[in-house]
């Protein structure tokens, strides 16, 4: 991105002449308006203390919005369980060979929450090593999953996204697409230490969108990725299948400050069970019937 020093306002204001594009252009300028409604301390350059930039958010959400509404047609239930402000931790399952699940969770709380909230994912370490991925993830507030980052962001009342399965979760093959692998306990230690409510969620459909039949680990490591997923049609391009996100009720764990590992593992298991339930029963147990994404 070589022209990032210019400072046009977020979101293109002028709708293109082509009538087919007018609808999209209108939505993109609506994205700009939503970005301005994010309750983050932006300065006059549109930058928050972490380097999150309004202009780049508008660009990203314009793109994500098309994927969210038209390509995947994401259906969301229980978005009201996510608090309107204040710290919280979204914890759910990985679904799909790479981060479309994370991207769609971020999109869901931007497009279907009022006022919109910026979800800040705890990202795998390899992302920040790659050119462009490093630059974009930094400007969009998606930081490396370090305890220091999580603690500071939660202290600032931000909304965190954690996939406790880690890279093992995205590496699930098609037959295992709706299973859960081991949850790390780091998120729970942080939630206990910072008294942060956990919003469990289940993510469905990523395995159908990216039907992984094998993961190339050696090739991936050669280019700086953990692995490269291979689909029956070779390239890991996601297919336009519907995705579903079910948010569950917040879970709050009281801490004494020095829980034993067994106790923490028990709490982790309770979160994992809730994610399991959300995957099996969808939003049925959460809140009302699933509603279709607006189109």
């Amino acid at each position: 991105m070589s022209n990032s020093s210019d400072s046009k306002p977020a979101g293109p204001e002028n709708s293109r002449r082509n009538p087919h594009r007018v609808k999209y252009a209108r939505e993109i300028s609506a994205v700009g308006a939503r970005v301005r409604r994010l309750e983050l301390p932006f300065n006059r350059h549109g930058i928050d203390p972490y380097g999150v930039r309004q202009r780049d958010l508008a660009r990203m959400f314009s793109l994500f919005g098309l994927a969210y509404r038209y390509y995947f047609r994401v259906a969301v239930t229980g978005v009201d369980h996510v608090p309107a402000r204040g710290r919280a931790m979204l914890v759910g399952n990985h679904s799909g060979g790479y981060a479309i699940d994370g991207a769609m969770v971020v999109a869901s709380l931007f497009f279907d929450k009022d006022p919109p909230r910026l979800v800040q994912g705890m990202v795998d370490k390899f992302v920040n090593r790659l050119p462009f991925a490093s630059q974009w993830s930094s400007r969009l507030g998606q930081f490396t999953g370090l305890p220091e980052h999580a603690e500071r962001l939660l202290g600032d009342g931000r909304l965190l996204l954690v996939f406790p399965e880690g890279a093992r979760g995205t590496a699930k093959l098609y037959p295992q697409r709706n299973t859960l692998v081991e949850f790390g306990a780091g998120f729970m230690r942080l939630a206990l230490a910072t008294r942060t409510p956990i919003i469990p969620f289940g993510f469905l459909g990523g395995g159908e969108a990216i039907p992984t039949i094998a993961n190339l680990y050696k090739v991936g490591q050669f280019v700086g990725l953990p692995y490269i997923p291979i689909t029956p049609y070779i390239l890991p391009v996601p297919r336009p299948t519907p995705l579903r996100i079910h948010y569950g009720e917040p879970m709050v764990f009281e801490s004494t400050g020095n829980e034993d590992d067994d106790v923490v593992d028990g709490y982790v298991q309770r979160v994992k069970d809730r994610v399991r339930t959300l995957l099996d029963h969808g939003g049925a147990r959460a809140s009302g019937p699933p509603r279709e994404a607006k189109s």
Partner: protein
Amino acid sequence: MRVLVTGIAGAVGRRVARELVAAGHEVAGIDRRGWIGAPPEVELHELDIRKRTADTVFRRFRPEGVVHLATVTHVTAPSDDRYRINLYGTRAVFDHSSRYGVRRVIFVGRHTYYGAGPDAPLYHREDEPPLAVATFPELADLVAADLYAGSALWRFPGMETAILRICYTLGPSGLGPLASYLRGPRVPSVLGYDPLFQYIHEDDAAAAIALALTGAPRGVFNVAGPRPMPLSLLIALVGRRRLPLPEPLFRASLGRFGLPALPRDAVAHIKYPVVVADEQFRRHTGFSPRYDEDETAAAFRAAPERPDAGRVRGGGRTGL
């Protein structure tokens, strides 16, 4: 208070001296370099802090406070010379200070102590270990000087020592590691990376140091100015053009084509941010910078294009 400032002829040193004089302190200074046009109230000694004569300055002036700014940060000074100045100089300052009953010593270090890397956190806190030793070995002597100064906290318990880790200074002098990097009309960056840069106006840095002398308790404190800015925006604010180069090309073109000559390992500091959390310092001293990110950049923009070459050791090279 009688205050002795080492490295007084540097851009920040001069401002610290003026700030202290204005606050009614009695100021003396030591520097190998001269300072033409120094305020008459300042007692200047043109000498090396490591020499015996420095001892005499301490004995005669009897400072109550010492601000130690005499560290070489430009990476071009031959490195064993640099190492000696930064470590033996710091040792001499603490030894003299303890011998002549100095109450407060302020060691001014750099925020680059923490180092930059893909897995380093944003907003370093004072208790974090120095990653710079691994990511940028040329900075090892500054890291060592910082840690050595920290040892004064237990070696001289009667003396109140504060170690400040100040972010990049920028301002009207046009001097300093960041200024050298930003000097040319085109500033090279690494394609695909746009780290946050944290910088403070020289006057604010001086004010923070002066404030630390009277306000900060013993300990280690990060000092920062306004909110950090992405490098791309900083380059635009100082009126330069960004030249994003793929990393191999970036490494190969340093010091050529009129681009700044960065040490090889400085690349990590152009790809990844070094940002410090300064809440501790602000809370203890009530410090708040007077210049925001735009005013600071504008002050540097108005700086002379080629600051007095004799004063910049090593010319155009820089030690991010």
